[in-house]
């Protein structure tokens, strides 16, 4: 028996040991040093990785959960969560898609993600994540030809420790806020992308996330590095099945763009938002941050947020390199009892840096939507520019739409412009559409899609179609 199996044996005796009945390996409930060691051990991590985790855990003990956000939620008992769960069939890794657990594939199909088909037809390499461990990675050959590394985080730790060591935690340090630090301590898996110097990634890289086992907080960790003069477009899409209990998802996503590199990160998020009465649903407390480290680098975030009971995230850009560019395009739709507090941070440090923020918020039903953003122009960021536009659309009388921008200008050479509007769908527009034969729901879908057009345009083709449908579906039942 190797040490890992011994560990598993030991934990089986533990009172809250494994629940193997659903074909899942779980670490015992609760958060402590042993659980972190267990996670590290089961993933066969080197010592430096374990040290990283433990250091983060030490720091976590000193931190308090933030509570300044608009959507309040019942207190989370961090000792009542499972911090590790993996599909059992993972232990003998499948070599190809055909070897996958048929039950797993079935679930994907139900979610409308025909894995093989999508991979073949769209030319997308899919690194599907079931719970916390990567299950399949396709199109590896094509990528390897270009020297691109696209694999799971655990694999990267094993095979490319020098890259992981160099960049992990440089954008989101372990001393960051509560949820980011929690992630640093207990993260299970995620994606790792490295684009070598001068390479333009030939395809859109994509990961579909899925949350399965109940009461499992998902702690993904994604790291994307674009070396000098490279380009990559990364897609992240999420769906989750019905679930009664609230689930926590605290992922960390770090992007690093070196000189002349460009990273485009697109998200479509459609996790279970809870039922019509606001029961259940996922807590989406994700930390996403990009560092434009080199000159002329560019990071662009595009997000379509339609799911989750609570969305609380601010994909940010630190514009450190001179002439670097940060962009943020967002659509956030809340319906029923959903709540969202989202936006971005643009931190201008280098000269001639530019940022652009386009945010569209739509709230319906009893939901609450907040745009919260920061534009901070440092005194050294000469000749910087920012343009922010945030528009909100309200549907019905029980929802709320809020805008909380923070603007800090410490540089007299720089220009910051911000505008925001709040309105509703005009009766004239609705009337016009209905006159031409659309039913009210279709009319609203059409108008909302028009309202979001600026952002939808930014999405890659494959996503744009899906996102447009999603916008319509999310607002079902909100008219009348």
């Amino acid at each position, binding site marked *: 028996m190797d040490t890992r199996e011994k560990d598993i044996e030991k934990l089986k005796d533990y009172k809250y040991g494994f629940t193997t009945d659903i074909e899942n390996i779980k670490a015992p409930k609760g958060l402590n040093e042993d659980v972190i060691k267990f996670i590290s051990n089961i993933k066969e991590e080197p010592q430096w990785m374990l040290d990283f985790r433990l250091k983060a855990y030490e720091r976590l003990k000193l931190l308090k959960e933030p509570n300044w956000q608009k959507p309040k939620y019942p207190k989370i008992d961090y000792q009542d969560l499972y911090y590790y769960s993996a599909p059992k069939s993972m232990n003998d890794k499948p070599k190809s898609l055909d070897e996958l657990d048929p039950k797993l594939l079935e679930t994907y199909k139900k979610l409308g993600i025909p894995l093989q088909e999508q991979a073949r037809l769209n030319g997308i390499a899919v690194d599907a994540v079931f719970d916390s461990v990567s299950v399949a990675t396709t199109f590896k050959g094509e990528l390897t030809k270009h020297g691109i590394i696209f694999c799971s985080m655990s694999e990267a730790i094993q095979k490319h420790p020098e890259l992981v060591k160099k960049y992990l935690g440089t954008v989101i340090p372990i001393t960051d806020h509560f949820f980011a630090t929690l992630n640093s301590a207990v993260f299970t898996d995620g994606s790792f992308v490295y684009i070598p110097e001068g390479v333009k990634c030939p395809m859109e890289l994509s990961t579909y996330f899925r949350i399965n086992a109940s009461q499992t907080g998902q702690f993904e960790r994604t790291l994307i590095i674009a070396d000098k003069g490279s380009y990559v477009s990364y897609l992240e899409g999420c769906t989750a099945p019905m679930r009664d209990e609230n689930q926590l998802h605290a992922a960390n996503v770090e992007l690093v763009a070196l000189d002349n590199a460009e990273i485009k990160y697109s998200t479509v998020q459609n996790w279970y938002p809870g039922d019509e009465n606001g029961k259940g649903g996922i807590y989406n407390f994700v930390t996403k941050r990009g560092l434009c480290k080199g000159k002329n680098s560019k990071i662009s975030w595009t997000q379509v947020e339609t799911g989750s009971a609570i969305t609380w995230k601010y994909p940010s850009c630190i514009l450190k390199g001179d002439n670097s560019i940060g962009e943020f395009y967002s659509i956030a739709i809340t319906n029923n009892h959903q709540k969202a507090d989202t936006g971005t941070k643009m931190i201008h440090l280098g000269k001639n840096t530019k940022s652009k923020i386009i945010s569209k918020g739509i709230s319906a039903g009893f939901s609450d939507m907040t745009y919260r953003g920061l534009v901070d122009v440092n005194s050294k960021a000469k000749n910087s520019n920012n343009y922010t536009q945030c528009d909100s659309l309200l549907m019905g009388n029980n929802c709320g739409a809020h805008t909380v921008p923070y603007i800090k*200008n410490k540089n*007299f050479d720089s220009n910051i412009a911000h505008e*925001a509007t709040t309105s509703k769908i005009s009766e004239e527009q609705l009337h016009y559409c209905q006159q031409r034969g659309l039913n009210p729901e279709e009319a609203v879908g059409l108008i909302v899609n028009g309202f979001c057009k600026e952002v939808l345009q930014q999405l890659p083709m494959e996503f744009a179609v899906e996102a447009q449908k999603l916008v319509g579906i999310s607002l079902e039942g909100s008219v009348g």
Partner: protein
Amino acid sequence: MNEQLQSDFDKIINTSKVSKKEVSLKKAFLKKFIENGFPNRKHEDWKFLDISQIIKKNIGNLSFFNDYSLTNKVDPTIFVNGLEHNKIVFLNGKIEKIDFSYEDQNKIEINEEIEKDNTFDFKNSLIDLNRAFTNKVLKVLIKKNYSLKKPLIIYHSINDKINSKNINLRLDFELEQNSCLRLVDFFSKSTNKNFVNIFYNFDLKKDSILKNYKLDKFRNNNLVYSFNNIEQDSNSVSETFVLSSGSDYFKNEINSDLKGEYSSAFINGILSLKENQQHEIRSTINHLVENTKSYQLIKSVLGKNSKSAYQGRIFVNSKAQKTDGYQLSKAILLDETSEFNAKPELEIYADDVKCSHGSASGSLNENSIFYLMSRGLNYQHAKELLINGFLLDVVEKITDPEIKILIKNIVGLKE
């Protein structure tokens, strides 16, 4: 600091005639203030300019004791010339003169008021401080259908007898139906450093009009905090104009509750700052019922080492359909050491509303300067002309012609 607060408080209670009931109320406010202390950057509303730090840095040890038994001589040279007006002179923390000689005495009532218990709940420790230490609560009542013939100027002055002190002023105004008041707050020069804490409370009944002009133009070293609470009944109008450029620190806070239909609130402000000044305007407009309107325009011009902040909040209740809310803040940064912060916030719970805000900041437009210089102006003049034009925009929003002229004269703006 807490021991000093307590001992200064006891000294004031001993030297002035205050009823037992009032003493216990004041004690409660003091207790609340001691619990919370001066607000600091951890409080969301004080994020940009930290008053607790600023007091420490500028004044150091603040004394809260003020001997109200002394009488101070009013220096008539501080009065504004060329404009007939009513006066209230507020000198060294004490009201020394009240003069309403231009008005019909039957239409105005000025009474000393007894502080009521929990009438305000702003969760603002500076208001607790004010209520604990303020000398008298004066209430000015303007009766039904009466418009004051002349504006009322409140002189805020401090002579050199007082230094490093906390000075509190509290005034209540009630404007009965269809009445009108033009109120000018005039801050005079002073080289001593004191912390002035002003709390005004306005109750605007149906159809009444309040125009409040706060003029802090002359360079002084005081730190000033001013809070205006305005409750508005239907069809009432409030107009607040802030000229903020004299004191070392000045924070103007305006809270306006639009409680009656067709009521409206206007806030216009100029922050023109130089060396080491730190000024802020924070406004909260609560649209509580249908068909209310608010408009805000704030412009800053920031010189060397200066810092300005604007926090504007528009809240729209779910009942407040057909709300019209607008916020615009603009800033010109003249020096690489100047800093501008803004937080224009919208919180909206009703769908049939028109709310928007805009914020822009940057340097003077080089092309415009070039244009003016090519027509014979030197660089300095071109710059001044552009800044004047930028600020004149706000002054033009003033609806009262008499006061508009007064302010233009004070600021030195020419059309």
